[in-house]
């Protein structure tokens, strides 16, 4: 019953997304949303399903964004190769960071990923090809497989949608695979999983690499869509974003990060307008300054989420649906 509901829900969502650009939705904005949604889902694979909170995912997202940007622009490779290399880079970096980080558990793990990502931030800042503060700009979209011209936003939109849907299905499969079940076990009780003969570090490393690779894909795709990669992609605030999107949407739920990404990206882009609107309705002029206070609003959401809606939007809904039954 529930499963069917979910299936139809996803199907309806897909239909809406397929039709969206025709109905006047803004393709670039939608694509940006997709990239962040994918990033959040990849992050959630680690956080929600394995219980490992990485605070360094910007390193994979942004790192791959740079790499993809560089190979697309300077080497002039085709988009699919750019995405592939970006993803591979995410995986490689994920392996390195993961190898160091999984030596510790819980919050230690978190701090290590944060610190390593911050170290990488300095690398990106200094590396000549990233353009420092200017960022890597004017990355061409090129032709997919040398055939399909992505310069058209419409074409790009459908390619982007296809990639993100496939990636999402892939994540879904990981979660519901034999591997995913062990991950769940590790999340619940790691010593027990060890005593059952599972090499938990290997599982953790694997899922870390998978998550990093998918984050890398998200970053590379973002570069392809928007045409640039900049320092904010590798800044720790980006990692914080992944956490926030997952938390707001509902961690450990498949669709939570999607919802979270929509909410957060919308806030980031629209809070100023909303502020003006509230100000015009309530006649309290203070709200007009909301646009300059995105960080304050973000901070507020963090606090409210942690204190009141720990399950996140989707999590709370699921919980609500579940309750009357049991």
């Amino acid at each position: 019953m529930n499963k069917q509901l979910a299936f139809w829900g996803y199907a309806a969502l897909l239909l809406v997304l397929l039709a969206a650009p025709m109905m006047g939705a803004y393709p670039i904005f939608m694509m940006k949303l997709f990239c962040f949604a994918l990033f959040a889902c990849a992050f959630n694979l680690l956080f929600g399903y394995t219980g490992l909170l990485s605070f360094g995912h910007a390193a994979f997202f942004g790192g791959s964004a740079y790499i993809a940007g560089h190979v697309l622009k300077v080497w002039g490779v085709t988009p699919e190769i750019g995405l592939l290399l970006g993803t591979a880079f995410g995986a490689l970096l994920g392996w390195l960071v993961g190898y160091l980080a999984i030596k510790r558990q819980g919050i230690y793990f978190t701090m290590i990923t944060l610190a390593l990502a911050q170290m990488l931030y300095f690398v990106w800042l200094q590396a000549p090809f990233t353009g420092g503060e200017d960022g890597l700009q004017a990355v061409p979209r090129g032709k997919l497989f040398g055939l399909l011209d992505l310069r058209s936003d419409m074409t790009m939109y459908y390619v982007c949608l296809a990639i993100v849907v496939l990636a999402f299905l892939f994540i879904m499969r990981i979660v519901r695979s034999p591997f995913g079940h062990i991950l769940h076990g590790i999340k619940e009780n790691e010593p027990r999983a060890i005593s059952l003969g599972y090499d938990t570090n290997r599982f953790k490393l694997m899922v870390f690499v998978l998550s990093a690779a998918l984050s890398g894909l998200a970053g590379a795709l973002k570069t392809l869509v928007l045409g640039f990669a900049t320092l904010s992609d590798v800044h720790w605030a980006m990692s914080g974003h992944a956490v926030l999107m997952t938390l707001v949407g509902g961690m450990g739920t498949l669709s939570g990060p999607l919802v979270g990404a929509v909410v957060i990206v919308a806030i980031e882009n629209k809070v100023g307008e909303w502020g003006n609107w509230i100000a015009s309705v309530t006649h309290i002029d203070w709200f007009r300054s909301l646009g300059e206070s995105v960080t304050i609003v973000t901070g507020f959401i963090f606090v409210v989420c942690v204190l009141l809606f720990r399950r996140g939007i989707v999590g709370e809904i699921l919980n609500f649906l579940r309750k009357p039954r049991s």
Partner: protein
Amino acid sequence: MDTIFGVPLPALLSQLLLGLVNGSFYAILSLGLAVIFGLLNVINFAHGALFMMGAVVTWMAMHYLGINYWLMLLLAPLVVGCFGMVIERLFLRWIYKLDHIYGLLLTLGLTLLIEGAFRSAYGVSGLSYSTPALLQGGINLGFMFMPKYRAWVVVASLIVCLATWYLIEKTRLGAYLRAGTENPRLVEAFGINVPLMITLTYGAGVALAAFAGVLAAPIYQVSPLMGQNLIITVFAVVVIGGMGSIMGSIVTGLLLGVIEGLTRVFYPEASSTVVFVVMAIVLLIRPAGLFGKEH
């Protein structure tokens, strides 16, 4: 004899001393983090923001009320400590039973709020605070000119660090605190007012940050963003030292200040990355950090 790897010995010596000054800040900040983590199990991301608050409050007191530096050395930690206690009562109180992660996220949210509030009030270029008259000028050490104020920073923070260490590791109150970290309910069942103790502890940890803030005010530009970059480095210090280890955070703080100082001479570009490199190496060899206990 008078050069090491091409660097003159006196120059090296002065760099070591300067490193020690920075190390003092790391020590006192990571100590506060360690105290809070150790006793509340909360990763206090807001530590940087509260450090900043210590500095800004010092500036405000001077600017609006004419209260001098020396008084603020006491008052700022008190004020910010009280603010911390309010935070603890209002927010942190509800999340102790949850995973650490929530503490981190909550305090991250608070950081954004606090920094945002100060930024709207004071902008980002910051405010200037002058060195107290008593400590202006410097001492010529022969090989370098050491501003008196910097020497004072080292002394003041060492005293505060050691006093804190003694309090936690060697006194009865410290034993309550340590036990309280593991099983607060049980300690309460022994007749100790744990909620109050936790509130005070958070206040104290925060006061340490504020104290560092006061010390920093005359050296650095007092700005709403001054805590942002420091906090990540301090996190790394805490990880290297072994989280929750009091002595570990003090020693590692000082040590890293010195290592950073040396890097500034031999490979300046890497001086803010070196902390993370050290962290990676330490973790490879000792996953629990230099002073941490393996569970």
